[in-house]
């Protein structure tokens, strides 16, 4: 994948499709598109509920709630969303450049949401963490 100063129209359309889906179906707010250094636009936004809690935080939260009755790790966090099409092919280098273009915030590993769009406008969302992050106990 070459680095574009302006993303090609197809990528722009793809990103706006995902943005509409986040806004209208998933009730996200503060949605913004930023043309990241990686050459691929990234969407930032705030989900209505917290999208991800690390399993260790989950344990800590349950313990805390058990002791004090107060719930922690509940506030939604700003997420980065990368829109991709199902027919695309990405390399580890491409993913690395996307991760390198976002700032590290918080104690946990960097993460993005991979929004995969299919031709029938189905969008599936995957969490992608940098490094080895153990799975949640679903």
């Amino acid at each position, binding site marked *: 994948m070459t680095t574009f100063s302006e993303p090609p129209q197809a990528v722009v359309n793809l990103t706006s499709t995902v943005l509409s889906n986040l806004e209208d179906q*998933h009730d996200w707010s503060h949605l913004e598109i930023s043309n990241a250094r990686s050459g691929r636009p990234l969407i930032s936004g705030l*989900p209505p509920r917290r*999208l*991800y809690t690390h399993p260790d935080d989950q344990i800590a939260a349950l313990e805390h709630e058990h002791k004090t009755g107060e719930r922690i790790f509940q506030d939604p966090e700003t997420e980065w969303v990368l829109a*991709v*099409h*199902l*027919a*695309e*092919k*990405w*390399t*580890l*280098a491409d*993913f*690395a450049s996307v*991760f390198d273009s976002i700032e590290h915030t918080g104690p946990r590993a960097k993460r993005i*949401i*991979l929004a*995969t769009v299919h031709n029938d406008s189905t969008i*599936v*969302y*995957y*969490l*992608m*963490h*940098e*490094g*080895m*992050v*153990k*799975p*949640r*106990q*679903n």
Partner: protein
Amino acid sequence: MSSSSSLPAPAVRISLIAGRYLVFDPEGVAALRRDSNTCGTLVGTMPQQPTQNIFLGLPIELRPEEAQALVQRGRAHVVDDAAAHQVAMHNHSRKAYIETLRKTKQTAHKVVTERNAQRSAEHADKIAQGQRKAKNVESVPLDNVSLDGASPKTPSDAQLFAVTPTTTKELLNAKTDVVCGSPNVPEAPLARHLQYNGYYMTPGLRFGARYSVYPGDPLRFHAHYMANQYAWEEEIPILDVVEGGRLATAVKKAFLIGGEEACQPGPSSDEGNVRTYSIEWAGM
């Protein structure tokens, strides 16, 4: 995660036989599992029941990249087993080996003789009891009951049992081993990275990836990841990412992709510059 002790353990002997990396020594297997987070796969069946392939035993087979990483870590050395046998057969250890074979035969002979003696003694006892009942006599002197084979005598070699040797352990020693260095296999930076960081790997077939990755011994933990390795510039179809993510999330794991970043300036560690990404379903 890894219980890295300060004492350097002796390197485990990996036998390279017909392109497969095998460990026959039970202590070596235990050491690999305990200290080098490597389980291997049991592949040994019984010589007389080769179709019995449900419960397998020693040896364990290692994946080439596992053997490679172990050699690089100094935890094992690979020996060309066929060459080692040739060397051993052409020097003095051959005589010693023949001697151990003879001793094994003698031991087998002794054991069988003793067992036979015990059996005939029991048998004679039963006969004596039977006679007692039949004759309805209070006591019968046992003097006339002969105990066959109770006197072990040293047999000549010709009388000895034929023993099928099950190991050539006695033949080989460190002197005869032909060490072949690090396995010449394609680089497996992800497997190496995982092994260096104390993760256990088992074949990933059952979950649809290359490796199942465990945070500790697979007998104690569930796998946390299904891992696939890619080259840094290798194209990964997004569909594969979706598939992997689905499969992994369905079994409460994360899908791990990783590879070695090419040409990174600066000193490179022997572990390499591996970058990994964990993928799981976002639940939305």
